[in-house]
């Protein structure tokens, strides 16, 4: 287990370094930048802005400052003229730099405001995915071949096929404008939560239902389940204690990719429902050429996805001792 986690951590650093370096080079190599937008700034103003964000430095110096082994700021290492209160700057000190567009905020502050919103939305979406997907999958497997099974399978295929914004549009029509039960957009209490998180979670609920059904069908034919039945255990107990535990393995493995998908889907859902989360900030930052913010979001999400995938792989071994982590790593 320790070896597995260490190896994962190593590859994690490689991944992160790759993402940072490639996007940094792309970001700084690109012409234009945040200050060349609609109106031309006075040359002196632009000069001082560029100086403030260190855009007048050579690329290698900017890179080292951003990643942080060398920090040229006043608190930086004594080696490069600082007072040494902060031995490492930049990413190494978890500092994602200032935002180009929201000039009074650092990327870290923006993320600190918006990440909890997105996290709440994503977590609730995951709850929807499991709360809807698991029962549907179990029901379909137990009632295999019936009309209910067919309907559930069709529903799952639909849920996977339909894009978020289409489902969102239809549901908004029904629940907001038709029935008037829910507010159209905004953020604050649970009512605002309900529709966006459902829309976000639906495709994943569909996948979970499929995986659960397939997993259960495979397990229900196995000898040990038959044995448990033959012993005279009540069917519900066989289902929950014997079959479900093994059948859930693919679902658990799927939670890693599902979280990544929820993070991605949250871009669109946040935009539709005007939710002030990370996704909205990311889309705006891309449109505004606010590269530090865009890069910060990408980095944070890479970290999240990687961490969750690792967690899920580790959890899979707890459910199924047959999986050896070294192979999965």
């Amino acid at each position, binding site marked *: 287990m320790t070896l597995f986690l260490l190896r994962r951590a190593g590859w994690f650093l490689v991944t992160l370094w790759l993402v940072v370096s490639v996007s940094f080079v792309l*970001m700084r190599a690109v012409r234009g930048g945040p200050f060349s937008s609609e109106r031309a700034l006075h040359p002196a103003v632009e000069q001082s802005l560029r100086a403030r964000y260190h855009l007048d430095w050579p690329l290698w110096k900017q890179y080292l400052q951003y990643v942080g082994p060398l920090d040229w700021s006043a608190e930086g290492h004594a080696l490069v003229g600082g007072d040494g209160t902060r031995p490492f700057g930049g990413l190494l000190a978890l500092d994602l730099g200032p935002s180009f567009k929201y000039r009074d905020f650092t990327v870290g502050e923006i993320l600190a405001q918006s990440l909890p919103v997105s996290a709440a939305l994503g977590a609730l979406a995951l709850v929807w995915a499991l709360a809807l997907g698991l029962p549907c999958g179990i029901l379909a497997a137990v009632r295999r071949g019936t009309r209910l099974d067919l309907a559930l399978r069709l529903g799952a*295929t639909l849920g996977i096929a339909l894009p978020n914004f*289409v489902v969102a549009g239809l549901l908004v029509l029904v629940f907001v404008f038709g029935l008037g039960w829910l507010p159209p957009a905004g953020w604050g209490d649970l009512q605002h939560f309900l529709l966006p998180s459902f829309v976000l979670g639906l495709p994943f609920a569909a996948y979970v239902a499929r995986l659960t059904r397939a997993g259960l069908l495979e397990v229900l034919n196995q000898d040990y389940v038959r044995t448990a039945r033959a012993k005279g255990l009540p069917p519900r107990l066989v289902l929950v204690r014997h079959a479900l535990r093994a059948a859930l393995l693919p679902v658990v493995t799927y939670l890693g990719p599902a979280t990544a998908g929820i993070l991605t889907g949250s871009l669109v859902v946040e935009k539709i429902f005007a939710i002030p989360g990370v996704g909205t900030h990311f889309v705006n930052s891309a449109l505004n050429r606010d590269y530090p913010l865009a890069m910060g979001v990408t980095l944070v999400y890479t970290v999240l996805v990687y961490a969750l995938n690792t967690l899920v792989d580790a959890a899979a071994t707890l459910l199924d001792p047959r999986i050896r982590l070294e192979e999965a790593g």
Partner: protein
Amino acid sequence: MSARGSASPARQAWRRFRSSRGALASLLFLAASGLAALLAPLLPLASPRVLALAGEARAPRLELGGPHWAHRVSIRLRLNEPPRSGELLARAERALAASARELTAATPRILRHGPRAAPSELELALLYRPELDPARGADLEARFATLLASQSGPDGLHVPGGGTLALALAGVTAQDGYGPLGALDRALIALRHRLFGFFQLGPWLGTDAKGRDLFARCVFGSRVSLSVALAAALVSVVVGVGYGALAGYFGGRLDAVMMRLVDVLYSIPFLFVVIFVITLLGEYRTELARLGIGRMTAFFVVLGLSTWLTMARVVRAQVLALRQAEFVRAARVLGASHGFVLRVHVLPHLLGIVAVYLTLTLPAVMLYESFLSFLGLGVEPPQVSWGILASDALDALNPLSVAWWLVLGPALFLGATLLALNVLGDGLRDALDPRLGRNG
């Protein structure tokens, strides 16, 4: 020999595929909608771009529809004084229409601006046959001015049957209902006019906020959505198969390094990177255009490059197994080069699995396309795609006017296509590779 050897499993797969009614129906549906997208200019649809005069969102109606206004040249005439009688005006209009017909061989319609008794402006709207280039408007302006002058005296146009009407040519404007078209599309439109004349189908799915027919926009949008998806999926297949085959065939350290890279790429949230790259490419628009790379080309290449990972993994696993097969080793022993073996012995065996993953890549790419267009980062107006239509619909939703049909139209098209692709993919997977489970 190879034909007989491969026919049997292929026929078996076809039989398995045919037995799944949903997959067969999906295939037929996709073929039909692909054909409709290709032949969209031939269909008697409204123009997807021309704005209606009284532009507003109107609910769907089941009607056959009015005349087709796609290629319209309007000659605007300013009346310097109100006509002395309605009868004089009517005769003047008839005369002007006759002149316009004489000049252009088009079908003129008279539209009046201002109150009926005292119109201030007349408009001769000419419905053009598409083989006539609407860009000839400027030329038409000069010719019509000459004609008008020859029929007028100092106090205005001599109306046949007596009387004069003081008017002046205010301008000629041409409206192009399709945007730039290729030769094939132009031919299709010409054929459409020969078949259907100026007939067009009514707004079955309603019209959008600018009075444009939603059904026509969905059909024309399918051209963009489907072609972007196909092109991106093709890029993804070429890269994925090439990468996977290389890694699997040569194996060893190369394989380890290449697959490690795939693992690393897997843990990057790709939509973010795609958005990032597309905005960066936006800065180099003019340079890319000079190289012959349009925004659309860049768009589907980026999309394709972000979806090849699964394909590469699957292909690699398959090639890894093939490499150990007797016939591949025999070919190597007999002195065949690596390239020959890959081309002749390995790639043909990948067709099935590539077909399966292609049908699963297509909906993924279509989703990406519509996501990005939805976010305003993909296809740009005046081009239409389903993502743009869905985005417009959500923008148009407000408590005052609930234009539900705007949401419904693109949802139907996009939903049906994605559903069909998913069902087809599942059916193909079951048919071609029975060893894989439904979720394998």
